[in-house]
């Protein structure tokens, strides 16, 4: 009985964990697609692990479980952004619902926000490109937090990336 129980438990454990592993790969798949499309590599962010810990501790009922990737010193033509939403959608796959797309090609700006449900919470994937910088953020939010984010969809990308042109931050060189 014991000899049969262990393999069965292993299979059950794999069945439970495998979808989660697949879902965790979404972020890496998307960042890989961006690297390929824009010809860049992710920027190393020192102390990100510590930051994640404090985010989780400070916002237990709101956004948490976030992943972050940044890309700097981008150089590409405005035409590259025209079908960028398709690149993101294809990288994430059908499990992710497209929600918001903001495009400003002349300013080389793009924001794409996708969402999927998982374990009673909603996962948001926010991709933001502003001139020479790009950011990908994935975070889990409660349904109310998600609705709060949707109040101003046109500025969701800037809110997630923490940049605001009106505040004089991150101006184009």
């Amino acid at each position, binding site marked *: 009985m014991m000899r049969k129980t262990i393999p069965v438990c292993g299979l059950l454990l794999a069945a439970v964990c495998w979808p989660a592993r697949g879902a965790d790969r979404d972020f890496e798949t998307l960042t890989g697609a961006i690297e390929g499309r824009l010809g860049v590599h992710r920027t190393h962010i020192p102390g990100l692990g510590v930051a994640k810990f404090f985010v989780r501790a400070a916002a237990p009922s709101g956004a948490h479980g976030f992943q972050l990737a940044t890309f700097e010193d981008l150089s590409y033509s405005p035409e590259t952004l025209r079908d960028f939403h398709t690149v993101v959608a294809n990288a994430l796959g059908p499990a992710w619902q497209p929600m918001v797309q903001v495009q400003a090609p002349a300013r080389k700006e793009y924001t794409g926000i996708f969402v999927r*449900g998982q374990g009673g919470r909603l996962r948001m994937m926010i991709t933001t490109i502003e001139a020479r910088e790009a950011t990908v953020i994935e975070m889990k939010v409660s349904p109310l937090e998600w609705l709060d984010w949707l109040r101003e969809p046109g500025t969701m990308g800037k809110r997630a990336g923490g940049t605001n042109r009106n505040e004089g931050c991150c101006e184009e060189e």
Partner: protein
Amino acid sequence: MKLAVCLFAVAVTSAQAQTLLKIPDSFSKLADKAEEVVDVTLDPATLGLASKYLSDKNPDEKAAKKVVSGLKGIYVRSYTFAKEGEYSEADVELLRHQLRGPGWSCIVNVRSKKDRENAQVCFFSQNGSVAGMAIVAAEPKELTIVNISGNIDPEHLGLLEGQFGIPKIHSQNKDDD
């Protein structure tokens, strides 16, 4: 029996399709001219996520669920231009023409002479209830189209204003000088 189910599915799908505005193909040229284009798509699958995870035990979530649960789709498209005159009345007419179709009635028209803004609010009625809504808001440098599909409780319309990219408009006819 199977034929009846198929016909019912077609009828439901067809009825929902009537509440959805078609963005004219020519608007791709507007997108090229626009300084910024915002596209919000909350389709049945996305809205279903919110409705599914909102709790009835939390008063705030319950209230939000009440608004969202009857909706089948919220679609917002907003074009912002660097200067005036980038879109024409003919472009807007392509949208308004659809809102003169069967089932649609435009009962609110908000016009501001001072700001040169014009917002038209139209409802799609089916079997005595509101099954769809559309707003076309035209400003000198911005054109916004909002389309909501689903059972819309008129009491909740005010709650939707300012949310999901839906512009805030006055709820009564008025001309501002």
